[in-house]
């Protein structure tokens, strides 16, 4: 379960202080899928970064299964991300020097999954995502949809408790994007993985159980379908 309590975050730039998040609070149950909706600059990415411990809020608490992840040391945060979190970024997501199989191998290596277990997991992921035969392909040889499917496969390779996707469909056409999001929801639901997707794509809002609207760093309201 993810509990977010009064989380605020400010950035300081040449334009002065910018409130990226202001007093954000909500709770998401384990295995739930959430869409963070809002326009560009509304604070979606900052909120995802705070949940994923990529950055710390200025104030407030984020509890992951009762554990305050904002109080973790940098090393503990890296370990938390390694074990508990999977990330899918907007684009250029894969490591370009590694083949598809090697990209999938990366989180498994980080989490100490080696040998036969590793090979089996990679084969299983490729089969699940319909990408068998792509093992030796380099990211540059894949289409946008294939790349994002591999990125998603990599994000869940080590079976994280939390999957954070930041605009995962931004570089895809609407059909491919919709298929990817459906796959994300279906797989996360079956694996009890809590899913956060940040998007400004209105078409995707119909696909989820829970949507959190952000505007200028504030939560507007909560809508359950």
């Amino acid at each position: 379960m993810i509990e977010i309590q009064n989380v605020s975050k400010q950035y300081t730039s040449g334009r002065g202080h910018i409130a990226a998040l202001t007093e954000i609070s909500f709770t998401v149950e384990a295995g739930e899928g959430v869409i963070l909706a809002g326009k560009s600059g509304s604070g979606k990415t900052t909120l995802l970064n705070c949940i994923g411990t990529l950055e710390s809020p200025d104030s407030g608490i984020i509890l992951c299964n009762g554990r305050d992840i904002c109080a973790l040391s940098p090393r503990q945060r890296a370990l938390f991300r390694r074990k508990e979190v999977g990330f899918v970024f907007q684009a250029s997501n894969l490591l370009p020097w590694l083949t598809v199989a090697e990209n999938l191998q990366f989180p498994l290596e980080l989490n100490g999954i080696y040998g036969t277990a590793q090979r089996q997991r990679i084969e299983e992921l490729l089969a699940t995502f319909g990408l068998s035969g792509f093992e030796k392909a380099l990211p540059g040889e894949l289409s946008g949809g294939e790349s994002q499917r591999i990125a998603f496969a990599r994000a869940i390779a080590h079976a994280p408790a939390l999957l954070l996707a930041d605009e995962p469909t931004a570089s895809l056409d609407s059909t491919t994007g919709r298929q990817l999001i459906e796959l994300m929801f279906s797989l996360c639901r079956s694996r009890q993985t809590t899913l956060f997707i940040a998007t400004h794509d209105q078409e995707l809002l119909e696909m989820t159980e829970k949507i959190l609207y952000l505007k200028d760093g504030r939560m507007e309201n909560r809508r359950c379908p």
Partner: protein
Amino acid sequence: MRLGFLLKLSILILLRSWRATAVLSFMVISAVTALVFLSSLAVGTNDAMIRNSTGLFSGQITGSVDRASETLRLAIPGVERVLVRRHQQMLVWQDEAVEPILLMGVDPVAEKENTALWKKTVSGRYLLPGEEAIYLSEATAQRLNLSVGGKVQLGARPGTALKTLTVVGIYKTGITQLDQGMAFCPREAFPLADGSIAVAVFVQAGTSPDDIVAQYRHLVSAGTFTAWTEFMPDLQQLIDLDSICMAIVMVLVFAIVSVGISCAFLIFTLKNLREHGIMKAMGLMSGDTALLLVLQIGLLTLCAALLGTVTGVAAVTLCAHIGIDISAFTSHNQYFAVSGVLYPRLTATALFTPPLLALVFGLAAAVWPTLYIIRKNPADILRSV
């Protein structure tokens, strides 16, 4: 993370970013090649100076023994040739002109085979075995008003000649010790039966004359031996100076190259900044990130240094075979009295120092890009790229 996977990752990054790898490698390869060659050339230059200076007459070791039989004990491992000579200080005169000289009784065949004095003949020819002849320096011949074919008398004092010899050749070396007060005759024509016995020892390439002298001092108690390092301290200093200059050049070259590598590698790393951000976001620790970058630059430098060493060795081998003729620049230099051809020679120092320095400076060059990446927050990286 397993070291093996980080190593694999480093190799894949280098191989699959081959253009950047090639440019970075080229800097190291060219520096190592140049320095292996320059170091070997410096060794070759030193060799040439030693060869020229000792090969003219003295050998790498000069000495004197009390009995002729002692000379047989001097042929020990590491010694190529021992030339035995008789010598005596005496006077040489022609009409009223008198000159003090050190007359050397030599074996002309052995001398011609092992020394280069005969190549410095300016008039006439070198000695032949058994003939009643003398081989004089140009300066002595001028003072005695002699030319080839002239006759000179030798003895302890004018008027009591022990022997009369015919001048068959006149030489000029440009080296004061040989051009002033020395003359040569075949051993059979030497005027005295009991002249002192001198030896000139030629050691094999790579053998230290000082080591041979130390052995001689142990073997032959009734004799004195001096290595060229002692009787030519000026040459020893010149060689030491050459070594110091080479060391300074190597450090300077690699310091400059390492700054270049560091800048280029930082650009290479910045090009992959987003990927480093993604890896950090996935939980790659700072230590692993540092190790990944150090492995990359370490591998790159190691491979490039090895390749540079191979090309350097190839260049040295080629030039060692054909030689580099610098006679045009050494005609008035006493250390190149015989030949101005240099033959670069590989030594362990010349072979291993450049790649080792490249590796050390290469790893030092990794510090800046590594610190840059590990200090960056992954969110800042992903936001900025």
